[in-house]
């Protein structure tokens, strides 16, 4: 198996929203970040992958198994899931969740689970409804990491968390993929969280897949220049992807390789690049 997830020509039509012919393959062993603004279709895509929602067109294979087949229920033993909203019944506490998961997952590891609970400092007897948002997310993550999953699918696991919690959670992702059999597919609108961890970035906008590239290669391929009008004129046309004029000059988003020598690039974060990629015509 080369790909942990194969998304083939997936379309999903809602009232007023269309996820349009998405083709995306998630390489095994990688961390792939799915970015896009709110409402772009990230959660829709994740629901389609997990079988929570059915597509209007197309099919998806997860861990070499079609997600509409009977065998998919067994495949889910190997998938760790974190959804964007709290998903455990209110009255249940951590110990009870452990008891439920022991009966749910064949490879449930009680020790590992309680280690994560300890690491995340989650109380054992408190009811789920009394957890803060950050604690709820960490609990979901603890569950997802405690049954020897080889694929983690996560929908906005860091939104609503403070920077410390986010940092801690991203660390756990990085550790998870130290094993080359483990893959992570994670959606987020907080691009800076993904910058450290991801191998690939998929960018979705208005239901369409705008790009899917190696994260580090994006820094070599794209660049941002701050130029005066005169300098702008010396720039080859085919290097320019888009330009913005302000009171002090131009900010230009370019293909690095097509820019002549002598220009100094601005330090661009992944977020800067992705935001500008919206102007790419695919």
């Amino acid at each position: 198996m080369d790909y942990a997830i194969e998304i083939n020509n997936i379309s999903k039509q809602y009232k007023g929203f269309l996820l349009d012919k998405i083709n995306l393959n998630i390489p095994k062993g990688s961390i792939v970040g799915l970015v896009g603004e709110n409402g772009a279709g990230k959660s829709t895509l994740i629901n389609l992958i997990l079988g929570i929602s059915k597509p209007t067109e197309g099919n998806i294979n997860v861990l070499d198994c079609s997600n509409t087949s009977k065998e998919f229920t067994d495949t889910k033993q190997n998938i760790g899931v974190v959804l964007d909203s709290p998903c455990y019944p209110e009255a249940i506490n951590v110990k009870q969740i452990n008891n439920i998961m022991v009966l749910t997952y064949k490879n449930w590891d009680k020790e590992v689970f309680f280690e994560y609970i300890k690491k995340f400092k989650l109380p054992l007897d408190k009811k789920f409804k009394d957890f803060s948002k950050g604690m709820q997310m960490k609990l979901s993550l603890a569950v997802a990491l405690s049954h020897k999953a080889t694929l983690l699918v996560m929908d906005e696991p860091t939104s609503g968390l403070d920077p410390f919690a986010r940092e801690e959670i991203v660390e756990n992702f990085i550790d998870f993929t130290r094993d080359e059999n483990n893959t992570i597919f994670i959606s987020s609108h907080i691009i800076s969280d993904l910058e450290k961890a991801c191998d690939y970035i998929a960018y979705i906008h208005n239901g369409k897949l705008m790009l899917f590239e190696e994260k580090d290669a994006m820094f070599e391929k794209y660049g941002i220049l701050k130029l005066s009008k005169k300098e702008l004129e010396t720039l080859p046309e085919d290097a320019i992807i888009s330009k913005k004029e302000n009171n002090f000059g131009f900010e230009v988003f370019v293909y690095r390789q097509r820019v002549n020598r002598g220009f100094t690039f601005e330090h661009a974060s992944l977020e800067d690049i992705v935001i500008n990629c919206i102007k790419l015509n695919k």
Partner: protein
Amino acid sequence: MKALLLKDVYTLKFNIIILGFMLALFAVMNPGIEIAINYGLLMVSIMAINSFSHDEKSKWNNYSIALPYGDNKLVLSKYALALALIVAGSIAHFVISLISLTIRGIDINLELRYIEVAIVVIFSIIATTISIPIFTKTSNEKGISILAIMMSIIAVAFSAFAEKFGNEIIEFLSGKYFIPITIFALAILFVISFNISMYLFKQRNKIS
């Protein structure tokens, strides 16, 4: 499926206790056939409402599909839960009413007691087979209204029916064909209900 049942028990622990008290109350008061019917319909309907509403509120509905349970088990667990509650409730009802009657020095009339239990069970199962598909399909406010209407209709209809054909009913209940026929009828009801629920469950995912 054990996992799903456990989850529902944890969630409904409080409700189960309350219902236990109500059941004890019913059993202690004049145990009668009407109360038995109403109790059967009531108990199961309330539990069904509660377990579904908890699931929807906590977004467990979506999450549970991502877990390795499978559609069959997810739907079946509701029936299993209802059945477990019916069995436990009926035994408890039986025992408590016997104790209550004994304490008050009233004649126990075992046969009538068996008939009561049978009626509770039968109506509980009927209530289950009706309420689970309803709640699989609709949101909870609508579901409760529909269920309330249906249950009222059944209760009223059966009371009227019982009044008219009371004697024939008792004869039937005491007869030897009662048990096999009833079991057979309930089994068919269950199969129909389960298939409807599965269909509605899959429908829900297609649209969502």
